[in-house]
């Protein structure tokens, strides 16, 4: 089972494939460091440009960007208390106080080492878990896939945050978009308004570019960033080799954060920011000196950064084996795989072992490169990125968005569609509607509908077909646990408080 893994290794070192990872990591750090520009945005803007590339070059770029961006978000989080990506919010808690104390350089070094460790752990999880899981996926017929999708939809609950009503409205909007196009069984047109271009439904990349890239670009053009020159000028940097011994005691936090991140990545629905929060809270709860947390405790930076990188590769486990992407980034990457004729599922590992295992290696090398590239450069040049003229940056991104979306099918219709979704995204953003539930609603809503209908056809209309085996029943139990669990826990805590 794992011999294919070694067989794929030489290809990864072909210089074009390796260069793709290097460029990806650097580009990822740059994008991640720009407040508002996320890994999802970077990869979805990029995907259309990779159509003509060799599969491993394209995938290497994506793997690099994903790893790089998850760390890059820490740079403004530490220096400016502005999380570069949503996943870096927890990094600001202790990173910024450290920078104020003149320890910004050390905070960034902790962040890059932790990110790298998280990424390496995640890549190993992908390598070890995906091949055996791909053998089991034949057990997943329509009714089982339906339950996976329902489970994913239920776990949107984690993404709802402070305002569940807005989160649910976002998710419903996503499910509505999944309904557009010809219906999966009979091919009847739904909400296509007679447009042939709409018959295939809404391409996820078009939605993502509009939703995730346009609002931050508008922000870039709208508000000049007030840079805090003090923090970026006195970083208090020392050599990484001198800094490493100070991090020795974080191994528990790294281990815990990695496992949490990997697990949350595998769950369809949740993502990096939740992993970072959970890891941060757990690390503080078990710390010997919790009073220093929030005042500039380097271990807090380590906890957040290790977890938000540990979900990167593991989020691809359900995507590659079942074809169900758990996060927006995984969805875009799946789109990239499909473009290169790589159909996710058990056949992927049989038909294209060199590409799929090569992709896993690229994740691993991307994570390792992070220390080398991020470590040596971050404290010098990346901090200066924040001084780039923002209108210039915004205009460049808009041009890339337009060209990229046009090149997917070579038609202007998609560009208008993207701009329309961008407008919707901007309004939602202003009204503080969360965007991730939209994407998950779109992906998982479509899966749920199609597979429910297929399952019911197999059962000739009898809904009991959905509960016919252990795989289904386990998934039902997990779904119930996700929905009921947090409420029960809250009740339990409340009742103890009263007592």
């Amino acid at each position, binding site marked *: 089972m794992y011999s294919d893994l070694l067989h794929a290794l030489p290809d990864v070192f072909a210089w074009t494939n390796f260069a793709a990872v290097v460029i990806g990591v650097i580009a990822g750090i740059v994008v991640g460091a720009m407040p508002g520009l996320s890994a999802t945005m970077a990869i979805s803007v990029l995907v259309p440009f990779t159509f003509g590339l060799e599969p491993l070059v394209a995938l290497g770029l994506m793997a690099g960007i994903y790893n790089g961006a998850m760390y890059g978000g820490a740079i403004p989080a530490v220096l400016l208390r502005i999380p570069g990506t949503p996943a870096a919010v927890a990094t600001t808690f202790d990173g910024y106080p450290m920078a104020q104390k003149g320890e910004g350089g050390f905070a960034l070094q902790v962040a890059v080492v932790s990110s790298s460790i998280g990424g390496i752990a995640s890549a190993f999880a992908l390598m070890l878990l995906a091949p055996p899981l791909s053998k089991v996926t034949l057990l997943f017929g329509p009714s089982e896939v339906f339950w996976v999708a329902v489970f994913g939809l239920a776990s949107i609950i984690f993404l709802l945050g402070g305002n569940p009503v807005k989160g649910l409205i976002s998710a419903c909007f996503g499910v509505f978009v999944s309904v557009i196009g010809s219906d999966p069984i009979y*091919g009847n047109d739904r909400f296509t308004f007679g447009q042939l271009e709409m018959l295939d439904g809404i391409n996820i990349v078009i939605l993502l570019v509009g939703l995730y890239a346009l609002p931050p670009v508008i922000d870039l053009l709208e508000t000049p960033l007030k840079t805090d020159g003090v923090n970026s000028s006195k970083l208090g940097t020392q050599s990484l080799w001198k800094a490493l011994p100070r991090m020795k005691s974080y191994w528990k936090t790294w281990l815990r954060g990695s496992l949490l991140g990997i697990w949350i990545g595998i769950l369809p629905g949740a993502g990096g920011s939740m992993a970072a929060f959970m890891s941060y809270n757990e690390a503080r709860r078990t710390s010997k000196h919790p009073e220093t947390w929030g005042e500039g405790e380097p271990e807090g930076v380590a906890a957040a950064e290790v977890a938000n990188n540990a979900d990167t590769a593991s989020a691809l486990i359900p995507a590659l084996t079942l074809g169900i992407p758990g996060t927006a980034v995984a969805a875009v990457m799946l789109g990239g795989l499909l473009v290169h004729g790589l159909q996710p599922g058990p056949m992927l590992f049989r038909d294209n072992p060199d590409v799929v295992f090569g992709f896993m290696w690229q994740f691993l090398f991307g994570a390792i490169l992070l220390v080398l590239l991020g470590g040596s450069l971050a404290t010098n040049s990346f901090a200066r990125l924040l001084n780039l003229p923002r209108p210039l940056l915004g205009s460049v991104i808009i041009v890339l968005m337009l060209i990229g979306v046009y090149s997917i099918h070579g038609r202007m219709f998609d560009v208008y569609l993207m701009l329309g979704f961008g407008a919707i995204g901007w309004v939602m953003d202003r009204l503080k509607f969360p965007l991730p539930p939209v994407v998950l609603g779109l992906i998982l809503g479509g899966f749920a509908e199609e597979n429910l209908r297929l399952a019911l056809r*197999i059962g*000739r209309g009898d809904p009991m077909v959905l509960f016919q085996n252990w795989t289904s029943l386990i998934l039902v139990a997990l779904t119930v646990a996700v929905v009921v669990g947090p409420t029960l826990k809250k009740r339990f805590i409340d009742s103890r408080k009263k007592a």
Partner: protein
Amino acid sequence: MLNIFKKTAIAGAMILSAGAALAEYPEKPIEVIVGYSAGGGTDVMARTAAPFIEKYLGDGASLVVKNMPGASGQIGVTEAANAEPDGYTLGTFNLPGMMARTIDREAGYDRDSFTYLANVVNDPNVIVTSKASGLDTLDKLLEEAKANPLAITVGMSSLGGDDHFALIKLEEATGTEFTIVPFKGSAPARTALLGGHVAMGILNISEVAEFQDQLNVLGVATKERSPFAPDLPTFKEQGLDLVNGSMRGFIAPAGLPEDVQAKLIDAFSQLSGDQEFLDAMAATANPVEVVTGEEFKQLTSDLYDLANGVWQTSPWN
């Protein structure tokens, strides 16, 4: 053979009478519109055939493949149907899909919108069953289907496609009824078969050739054994008259100048005798069956009548 001589003679006469300008066709690159994304079956066929057509057109002819994916090939074929009929825009054509779409929805073309050049690929349907079903011969399958109507679930790639028509032919020929489970494409249908989630499947020979040890292949819907997988028996051999398949070929807009049409058909008809081309197609899992001009038009017309007949009695949406 006589036919080719006749066509060549007519083409020759045309070229002589039309004068220098037209004799030089093609004098600029010819665009081939593919209604699917790069890398799909139809795209691979177009890109594999293109250099050979260039060779047979001669005079430094050049074919440029342009992908216009979307709406199951509808966008591309509509574009080709409405293009200027000057021989510089060709398109790919899929049967029975392209005709079925004129029946089940409003299409921007009909069967008279095209100049029929050549069908190149005929990927015959096969009936397979999952190992778990225990239905490992055609007789066992039909016996079970007769004993328990609708009890056998059939995975296929979509309604109104070649798989669906093959099933309808099977049901009519044997007086059986099955429960259709239309997946989104043949790959998920095949995965469901491998996992035993559906009992039977109708796929195409190119899609199952490599899976003969994991699925029971009960028969191939061709008149004679397919050179693509000569070890698989036909239904005819087993006493069942079932011939059906997915076809892919090339069309141009209706109203092509006759000399251009003749030159193109001549180039396409030479494909079937080109061993290098046949090898390239075999390597990409494309069973070749070249049918040109009038015969191709007749084939399309027959398939339209079949699809229309099915639609009248049992519409699929």
